[in-house]
């Protein structure tokens, strides 16, 4: 080919290592799935509490959000795995995998859901209150069902980022897809074939996820806009 230095390009090489790469992909999907689901739940619950303006809770949530949004995920991962044991809390690679993604993703989804809940037209809420519903009940009946749909596009964006950020686990050598590929490169030196292959896998999965989220957004879009 046009490759320099006589690089011996072997496309079939990737298939020799398919089992290891498949295991890596499974781990990627596992920590991503738990991280995404967790971030979703955390976002809904804490976002609601935040929008309800519960006194002390709101400040605590605000602290959590600001810390995890203003520091790099890579450093958070290092800290969780290598530094926490020094103060007695030792977590496995798998746990740090999904936990770090959950905490990072959650910080963003909390803000997105909070904004969504607060963006609901106040008229709906007032109407609900006028009918005699309590503040909490009105919130549950109007802000929540409408708010989460408003927040949906930005939330799905973050969830896809959570999936891509699973590759950060190379920091703690957790054998997800990227780390597995790097390990194979370490003994075979086939950088091009391996990185091209996992690049295609990531792009393909992100594309599938985008299709999925677009379908979900269409299904749950508020008719006529909000």
């Amino acid at each position, binding site marked *: 080919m046009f490759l320099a*230095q*006589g*690089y011996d390009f072997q496309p079939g090489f990737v298939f020799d290592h398919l089992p290891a790469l498949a295991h890596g992909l499974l781990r990627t999907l596992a920590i991503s799935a738990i991280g995404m689901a967790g971030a979703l739940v955390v976002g809904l619950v804490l976002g609601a509490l935040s929008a309800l303006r519960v006194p002390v809770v709101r400040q605590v949530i605000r602290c959590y959000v600001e810390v995890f949004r203003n520091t790099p995920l890579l450093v958070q991962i290092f800290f969780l795995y290598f530094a926490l044991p020094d103060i007695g809390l030792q977590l496995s690679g798998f746990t740090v995998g999904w936990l770090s993604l959950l905490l990072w993703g959650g910080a963003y989804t909390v803000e997105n859901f909070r904004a969504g809940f607060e963006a609901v037209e106040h008229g709906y809420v007032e109407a609900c209150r006028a009918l005699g519903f309590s503040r909490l009940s009105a919130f549950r009946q109007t802000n929540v069902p409408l708010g989460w749909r408003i927040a949906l596009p930005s939330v799905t964006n973050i969830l896809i980022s959570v999936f891509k950020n699973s590759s950060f686990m190379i920091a703690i*050598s957790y054998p997800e897809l990227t780390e597995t590929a*790097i390990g194979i490169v*370490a*003994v075979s*030196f086939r*950088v091009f074939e391996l990185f091209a292959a996992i690049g295609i896998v990531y792009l393909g999965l992100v594309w599938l996820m985008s299709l999925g989220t677009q379908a979900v957004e269409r299904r749950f879009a508020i008719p006529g806009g909000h």
Partner: protein
Amino acid sequence: MKAKLGMIVAAAALLLAACGGTDAADQGKPAGKPVDVGAPLPANVQQKGKLAVGVKCDYPPFGYIDEAGENAGFEIDVAHRLAAYAFGDPGAVELTCVTGSNRVPFLTTNRIDLIMATMNYTPERAETIDFTSPYFAGGVKMLVPADSSVRGWDDLSGKQVITIKGSTASLWLTQCMPDVEQVQFEQTSEAVTALAQDRAVAFAQDDTLLVDLASKNKATKVVGEVRADSPWGMGVRKGDTATKAWVDAAIKKLQDEDLFWKAFQESVSDKATQQQFEKVIPRPGNELSYPTGSIIEC
């Protein structure tokens, strides 16, 4: 407007002067002359004006970062001596930190021209790169907590063992003990920390590094029979005969002048350790050679 322009020009001039200033300070050192080692310096190296070497930064006492943030160690010393032969200036060397997993890609992508990074010779590695003459030798052993019940390699069966990606220990375990679950890290400190946190029963790596780690950390000890014992070689790109010829000749010259032993004594102050490894240092009358056949004997 004119005042602003004037300030910018003045600032630029100051900046240039500062940059120029450091060059002038370097030129204060007396420049030696290149030494003829018996083979010509390759043209691409001559053009660069310095030797681009990949070294370890996490492997004391061979390659590590000292308190001042500078590269230090036995291999770094040798690199400086090679630069002195090549250009007459020990400082004419560009040291890049590499790891067991990226040293070969760094070489094949021209980021470095020479690997001197505690690399054992294996026939498999020799398929992708060319090895120079050997300059050290070592095998792999295990580092375990001082109170561990692990005595030999068989005790690792079915357990988790820490290795460094791309290292000889990792290759040996993959081939000879596939039931061992390898927890692979990039850096020595990550491996050491993980062992201290009991994330595995042992850390398998070169005996030279483990001896150094155990001497500094009394809570650990080195166990096991040495495996995959093989000489270390420097690595050049496949087919780069000019660099190989020059480095081989330089290694011979260093050996004849007993400079390897001198550098080793400076890096390893402990007399007992010096004695332990004396037979694998190239000295006048002490030749090292590569074995034929596979290194990985199970």
